[in-house]
Every structure is written in structure tokens, then in C-alpha cells.
């Protein structure tokens, strides 16, 4: 088990933010950073995923691991993320249906895109498995599946040439913005909520940031010097968010997505704002960690087990929505829902690590060189 560190900490922070933001209307929502900027926790999550891929595909000494190992590791991770998405979709749909039956309330069947499944299960079941039917709030993992699936290419190209990787990634991003390329939804019309063709850029940026700062002291110092710039960007973001100033997409010139604040296509404004956030907050963990030991341990624990925590968080936030709906909400309910949710997330992280620590009866000879038997819990993205 890793010691608490900045990456796990911020990842845990992103997970908690996503959990709270996925119970819309709750009191704590307005205290999350997503309300005070152009980008939000989704960007942070994907960027750190890229960063972690860089860590996971190197040995303890920092040397790149063999190519085949990298491909297999990321392939195995793709399977895990896909499995998680299918599992939480099945559970979420059952929760929605069960809740509608129990409360005798068909309104619940129309919950964020679920209506399609219940009105048209034959097509939609296929769509669920193909990841082309996504429920609202359950659309990050489909993106993550695609990103981890292409991650072997990212890592291997990055080992050949980082400039080439960045150029390829930027070209794909730019073309997707201009031509509005996206993965289609099916059987519903429309596109994916998170366009993997655009969001891959953040994964690549996370990966490259880790690779580059690992080796270059000069780059690290340059980043630190750019911190004031980051603070300016963050301040502008706060002003724009609080005053709700954003371009009107009907008035934006072509190519429209370059100018609007679009989440699906990760429009440049969101990207710039996020980079500003990274610059502004890069040193914060080192600053606060000694003073908030417990918080750092808690959030790092969540971050270490991000997939399990994210999955549980998705289901818990759905359950929280139902509780709020049925009880009518209110401060007391919100405190209970969010509080018990955070405790449950903490337990999830602890439980996953307890399971992986437990000696297994049929265990083969321990292989000290790699931790390939438990890529999920310890090292992988």
C-alpha cells in the first residue's frame, strides 16, 4: 500500500467532488469547486488517470517496463473498467426499476435517460453492453474504458517520441472539435456525453506531465514559476462561473465548439481553465499535507482505489437521489446522505485493500518483481 501522496490525494478529492455533484440539489453541491470554475472534477479525474498510467508502466526504479507487460497490464485494466461499468449499469437500472415499483411511481423510470431502457429494452440492452446507451451520471466510465483501451498506444508512442504523441493527440482533438466527431449513441440518437476523441487529450497531457517532470528539474521549476498565471486563470474562471458569463452557442462563430464552453467536447476554454488549475494548485498538497494528516490519508485511500470507489460512489449517489426525492430533501437529509456516503466510500477503499492483503489459499509462488496479480489495487491507473 502506497503512502498518501499528491496524486492519490487529488484523485480522492475528485472522487468526493463527483460523488457530491452527482446528488443534484443537495446543499453541499454549491460548496464544490465545480461551481466556481469552467472545468470540473471530470477533467481532474481523467488527467490524473493519465498521470497514473505513467507511474504504473514503470518499475520501482523508474525504468520503463517491457512493452508486452504494459500492453497486457492496460488490457487487463480495460477489462476491469468495462466490467465495473456493466455491473453498475445493471445495478443502477435495477435500483431505478425497484424504486419505481416500491414507491409506485413511474416518474422514476424517466430518471436521466433511463426511460429508453424501460420503454425499449430489446435495443437498449444491446446499447448498454456496447456502452452506447448511457445513463446520466453514469457516463464517465464508458469514456474511461475507451481511454484505457487506447492507453497502450499512448504509452508506446510516448516512449518513441513525446512530441509525436502530443502532436497526434492534439491533431485528433482539434479535428474532433472542428468536425464535431464523437462516438454515437445507440439506440438513442445523439452522441456520447464525454467525447473520447477530445478527452483523450487530457489523458495524454496527464501522462506526458508525469513523464516530463519526472526527468526535467528545469521543467518543474518552470511550472512553479507559472503558478501566478494559473492563479489568474482560476480567478477569471471564478468570475465567469459566478456571473454565469459564457458564450451563446448560437452566436459563436464556426467552428463553434472552439469558442463555446462545451463539456462533451472539452472545449478549449475548459482545457485552459483546467491547466490553470493544475498550475495554481500544484504545490498545495505539499503545503497542507502535514497539517491535515487524517484528511490526506482518507482522500489518498479513496484515490488508491479509484475504480471501486467511483463505482460505489455512482450507486450511492443514485441511492442518495432517491432518498432526497422521497423525503423531500432538506439540510438534515443532505448531511445524512452525504455523510453516510462518504463513510461508505471510505469503507469501500479500506475493504478493497483488506481483500487484496488477505493471503489467498491457492496463491502461487510470490513474484517479487511485479505486482501483476493485483493491478487494480496497487499500481494501475
Amino acid at each position, binding site marked *: 500500500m502506497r503512502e498518501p501522496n499528491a496524486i492519490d490525494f487529488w484523485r480522492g478529492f475528485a472522487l468526493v467532488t463527483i460523488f457530491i455533484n452527482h446528488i*443534484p*440539489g443537495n446543499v453541499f*453541491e454549491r460548496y464544490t469547486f465545480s461551481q466556481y470554475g469552467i472545468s470540473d472534477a471530470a477533467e481532474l479525474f481523467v488527467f490524473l488517470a493519465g498521470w497514473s498510467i505513467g507511474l504504473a508502466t514503470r518499475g520501482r526504479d523508474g525504468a520503463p517496463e517491457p512493452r508486452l507487460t504494459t500492453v497486457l497490464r492496460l488490457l487487463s485494466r480495460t477489462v476491469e473498467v468495462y466490467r465495473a461499468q456493466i455491473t453498475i449499469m445493471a445495478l443502477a437500472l435495477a435500483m431505478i426499476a425497484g424504486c419505481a415499483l416500491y*414507491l*409506485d*411511481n*413511474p*416518474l*422514476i*423510470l*424517466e*430518471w*436521466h*435517460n433511463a*426511460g*429508453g431502457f*424501460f*420503454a*425499449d429494452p*430489446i*435495443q*437498449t440492452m444491446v446499447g448498454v453492453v456496447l456502452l452506447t*446507451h448511457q*445513463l*446520466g*451520471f453514469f*457516463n464517465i466510465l464508458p469514456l474511461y474504458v475507451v481511454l484505457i483501451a487506447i492507453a497502450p498506444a499512448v504509452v508506446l508512442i510516448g516512449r518513441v517520441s513525446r512530441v509525436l504523441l502530443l502532436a497526434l493527440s492534439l491533431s485528433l482533438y482539434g479535428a474532433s472539435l472542428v468536425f*464535431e466527431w464523437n462516438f454515437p*449513441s*445507440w*439506440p*438513442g*440518437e*445523439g452522441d456520447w*456525453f464525454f467525447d473520447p476523441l477530445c478527452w483523450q487529450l487530457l489523458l495524454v497531457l496527464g501522462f506526458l506531465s508525469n513523464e516530463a517532470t519526472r526527468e526535467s528539474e528545469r521543467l518543474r521549476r518552470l511550472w512553479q514559476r507559472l503558478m501566478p498565471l494559473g492563479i489568474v486563470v482560476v480567478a477569471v474562471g471564478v468570475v465567469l462561473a459566478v456571473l454565469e458569463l*459564457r458564450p*451563446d*452557442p*448560437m452566436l*459563436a462563430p464556426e467552428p*463553434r465548439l472552439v469558442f*463555446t*464552453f*462545451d*463539456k*462533451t467536447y472539452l472545449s478549449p476554454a475548459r482545457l485552459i481553465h483546467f491547466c490553470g488549475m493544475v498550475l495554481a494548485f500544484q504545490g498545495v498538497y505539499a503545503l497542507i499535507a502535514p497539517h491535515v494528516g487524517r484528511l490526506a490519508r482518507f482522500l489518498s485511500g479513496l484515490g488508491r482505489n479509484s475504480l471501486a470507489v467511483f463505482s460505489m460512489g455512482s450507486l450511492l449517489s443514485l441511492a442518495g*437521489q432517491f432518498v*432526497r*426525492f422521497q423525503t*423531500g*430533501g*432538506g439540510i438534515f437529509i443532505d448531511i445524512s446522505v452525504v455523510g453516510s456516503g462518504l463513510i461508505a466510500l471510505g469503507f469501500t477503499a479500506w475493504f478493497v485493500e483488506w481483500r487484496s492483503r488477505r493471503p489467498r489459499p491457492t496463491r502461487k509462488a510470490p513474484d517479487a518483481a511485479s505486482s501483476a496479480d493485483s493491478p487494480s489495487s496497487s499500481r494501475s491507473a
Partner: protein
Amino acid sequence: MPAASTPLPSPAAEALDQSLSPECRVPGSKLYTLARLKAVKAALKEKRPIRVLSIGSSSAGLGASASYPVKLENALEQALPDVQVEVEARGLPGEVASGAGERLRSMVAEMEPDLVVWQVGTNDALARVGIEAFGEALDESVQWVKSHGIDIVLIDPVFTESLADDAYYTQMVRTVQEVARREAVPLVHRYAAMRFLSTQRTTEAHMLGRHFRLNDLGLRCMAEHATRAITLSLLQPEAAKDAGKADAGKTDAVKTDHATSGTAKTDPAQTGTSSTGPTPAPKQP
């Protein structure tokens, strides 16, 4: 309390709208309020296809022929012979009060339709967002659509027995009605229509009670009801009061429309004037 929280009073003996399928028949006053649809009319005059963007919980635009958007398209083409109607459908996850309005704008900008049919309120009701925040955000979004010369029809949320006495929910439905009236846009009273249908002892009304299914009927009726509201709204006169249809002149929306006649642009003075409607029900604790 249930009677007080009913969005519309129920005139006992109004005739059912015979243009609808027997199982979807509802009196006109329960079904819609009308207002003019300029952009669609313009498209009709230019004899070009009408582009409709259907948005909302049942609007995922399913591939099956049974889906609501396909039904809407069929019903519209039936009601408007010789007119080609292209319905694009999108689900809209998220709450109007927090961000869904922004997504709606992106969708509208992407498609530039003549008409938006927006089934609204479900997600906000499920999240129990503040009624006022919802009303304001909805009003803003409707104004935005109108300000770009695009017509919009609202559909209020579904009726369900279990929420018939829920003051918050009925207030939500009423807020959609108020916004429609304030902005002079047609409204499909899905809530009132389903409430009415649930009292008819037809064999298929079971979907609204216990052991419901989200079945064909509810969605087909909604498509028919939306179509009826759209076609009747198209018959609204430009400025004169004498309507072609007998039932067209009855509604509040029409009166509002005449009062503000000719101004398609949004009136900033109207923004935020909340609760002009009937006695607001108390908020649920």
C-alpha cells in the same frame, strides 16, 4: 388538499377531443394551451421540411419504431399532410436548474431546428431542486430559444397517483405552466391529460396505477397530444382574434399572446416575475 393542488380545474362535461385515438381522448382544455409558432409556419410557407428537436426523458430517440420520437414524427406527418417532418431526439440528462439548460443550448445550436418540443421537469422534480430556481432557469432557456427565432413547445411532467398529493410536485407542474404562459409558448398538459386518463376506467389505464408499465400507450398518447397542440397552435391567427378552430381562442396563452402581439423578441421586463399564476401551494417541508 388534492383538489387544491390540481393544476387545472376540471370542467365536468367538456367533450373529448375526437381527433385523438380513443384511448388517448382527453378534453381540449386538459390537453394543451396554445400559442403561435412562427418559425414552423415560416417553414411551412417555404415548403421545406420541418426540423423538430425533441428533448427530454422519453426522447432518447430510440431505434425502435415504437419509440416516442418516431411516434411524434408519424403523428405530425399524419396531421400535416404533404409536409415532411424530421424529428431529431435527444435525452437531456441533468437538471434545468443546474446546467441542463446549457446542454440544451448546445444541442439547439448543433441542430438549428424550427421547433423544440421539450418534455421538461422530470429530473428537476426528482432532485427536488428549488421551485423558483427551476422556474427561473426554465424561463431563461425558453427565452433563449425564442430569441433565436426558434419555436418551442413545452410538455409538463408525467402524472402519477403516488404524487397526486405531493405539493412540491404539483407546484413543479404549475411552474411549467406559468413559464409557458409567461413566455407565450404552447404547452402540452401531460400531467392533466394523464390524470384525466387515469380516471377513465379503460382497460389500459392500469399503467397509471399499481403494477404500471412504461408502456406503449403513455408514450403514444403523449406523441398524439403534442401533435395536437402543435397543429392547433399552427392555426393560431397572426394577430386577429377569430380563430379557425372553435377551441383555439379559449386559452390563457392565446390571450397573453395577443397582449404582447408581434414581439417575438424576449421581453426582459418579464424575466423573474414569478408566481403570477393561481394560488401557490405551500412548499413541502
